[in-house]
């Protein structure tokens, strides 16, 4: 399972990011969320959203094997194993691998928990099976 987003439906409210920080860290702090909302104002006046596709590129480069895969196929960071080396961050094709030492002493990423989907009022987000990628 992975997140999908129709970026044209995003209103910039950030409810998804509040729900996410609560899910991943147990804290109300949207800066610790695992998806990105980019506002484009005053022109053209819309938002772009980037979400994790659960591609696994981050896990492939992690030298401590801190990025693991759960039973549903979603990759997540085992906080205890992360050594903050930052190898994963540039690998992410969506730029949704996060490491900010002032916020947490671990990298973090989307776990496909779906809490963001539950609070998105415009139905911009949804969870679905990963699509097979052509070789």
């Amino acid at each position: 399972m992975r997140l999908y987003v129709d970026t044209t439906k995003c209103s910039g409210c950030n409810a998804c990011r509040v729900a996410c920080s609560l899910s991943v860290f147990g804290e109300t702090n949207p800066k610790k969320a695992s998806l990105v909302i980019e506002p484009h104002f005053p022109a053209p006046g819309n938002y772009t959203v980037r979400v994790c596709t659960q591609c696994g590129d981050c896990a492939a480069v992690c030298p401590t094997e801190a990025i693991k895969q759960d039973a549903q196929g979603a990759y997540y960071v085992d906080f205890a194993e992360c050594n903050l080396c930052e190898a994963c961050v540039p690998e992410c094709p969506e730029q949704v691998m996060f490491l900010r030492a002032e916020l947490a002493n671990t990298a973090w990423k989307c776990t496909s928990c779906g809490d963001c989907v539950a609070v998105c009022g415009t139905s911009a987000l949804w969870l679905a099976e990963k699509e097979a990628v052509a070789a």
Partner: protein
Amino acid sequence: MNGYGGSILRVNLTTGQIKKEPTPADVARDYLGGRGFGIYYLLKEVPRGADPLGPENKMIISPGPLSGMLIPGGGKCDWTTKAPLTGGYAGSSMGGHFTAELKYAGLDSIILEGASQKPVYLFIDNDKIELRDAGEYWGKGSVTVEKMMKDKFGEEFQIAVIGPAGENMVSFAHINHDFGRQAGRGGVGAVLGSKKVKAVVVHGTKSVQVADMEAYRKAGMALYKACKDAEGLKEWTRYGTTIVTSWCNEVGALPTRNFSTGFFEGADGITGQTMRKKIVVTDKGCFGCPCPCGKYSKMNKYNSYVEGPEYETIGLFGSNLGIDDIEAVAQANLLCDDLGIDTITTGNVIGWAMECYEKGIFTKADTGGLELKFGNIEATFKMIEMISRKEGLGALLAEGVKRASKEIGRGSEKFAIHVKGMEQSAYETHNATAMLLAYMTCDVGAHHNRAWAITYDLQVGREKVTPEKVARVIWLQNFRPMFDVLGACRLQWVELGIDRDLYVPALEAITGIHRSWEDLDKVGDRIWNLTRLFWARENEGFGRTWDMPSPRFSEEPPKTGATKGQITSLENINLLLDMYYEQRGWDANGLPTPETLEKLRIPNEQFA
């Protein structure tokens, strides 16, 4: 303290001193936050008789316990001060993302005191708090400055900024944020301008603590589910408040040509449906909101963009000025936003000026050659600029319609549509007695947000003058502004009809203190009386005469629309006030009685 940022930030613009003090637990308990903190500090710290534009006035900026949390619409910030427009209480609620950032920076209130000699902006990045030189920004428009600051500091920084109108201390200058949200009314922007504060910039990375994490997440998710399940969610999101426009025209509530009637023959050009088709590009929302009411628009004719117009701006710049072109209304909205003046007051004041021109009270000599007639779009744009810069006739209009009409005289006071010096917002009230009473008794002047009662009027009989109507207005006035106290938006409850009881477990889980809506209504009642007492303290002879509406509604019946030929008599206006004062526990002149003050635990010494 659970649910709170933790600190009150005091900034003395005269001395440059910046200090933090812990948020007092008893103030948080009794006043909760937002608008509650606003009136608490206003009464306590602004001396009687302070000049609203002088250094003794203060600006109190406050989020609430629901701000920045997993709560639908936890995005409201209160700005409280003594109002330059009216000389009374101003509490203005601003949406967007600013309030959440204050909580993440650990703040429950910012109190701006004194006045700076040179233009500055307040910069807050967690515990790094500085007053910085605003020279490169002073004189520039709000939209321009917000973009400059976002580019310089980063997207995570939230900006609240005044335009040139605020710098010029136009009495209804506003504060702009997030490219289209405002602290709009009463001249809050002028207070910042008088202190030479161009902007407040905030960034915070702290988490907000809660009393019961599991209960909080459960209650928050339940609130979001209720919003997502609401029947009207899609339609409301599609139109926001513009959904009301054609309906108002149908029922004779759409203010037209300076509130002379409630029916506009050109209304089709400015309805929500027309607007959606012609100019809307994005549904834009405030922090945490599942039903974004903001309609971000692109105006091809002017090569520009604006968040809006929402219903008020459509009413006051569209029908009220005889303009039936939604793109022009949107452009007027942008000009007001960027230059920094309240669209409601500005549309109302220009409507008054247009009526003066059409009656020959103003001539082209007064208007600098402008043909200031109803329907003239170019003249409207020019007038917005002249008001912002206090140029020509703009200098007079910048005083607001009460002072302007007093100065001009010649019968123009009779069609100055205001209460207590604040211009009436976009509901025409020749015959809608609960709504009229709401305007008369609203605590900032003729604004609709405390008690929106016009549907109720139509449901029970618009002309009726009954104790039930009065009770309804009071119930709304105690309840609706509680959202401003809690730091969240009321529109999820108002527009989607979600059960207000869903907020109770959320508030308790966040703060650790159980409060029912009965408890909260008591807080609302208390705050209502405190803001009333502030008006009385600051205005000699304050009382019933200050609650009177424009004589237009009792003397000049509309000639068109659903309210053709209808008025509300002066006798009924006074009867409404008699009943209102009685139910509020106020005397015949509209002042809280000693018994009421005692019941509400309000000590008398604050008002000596």
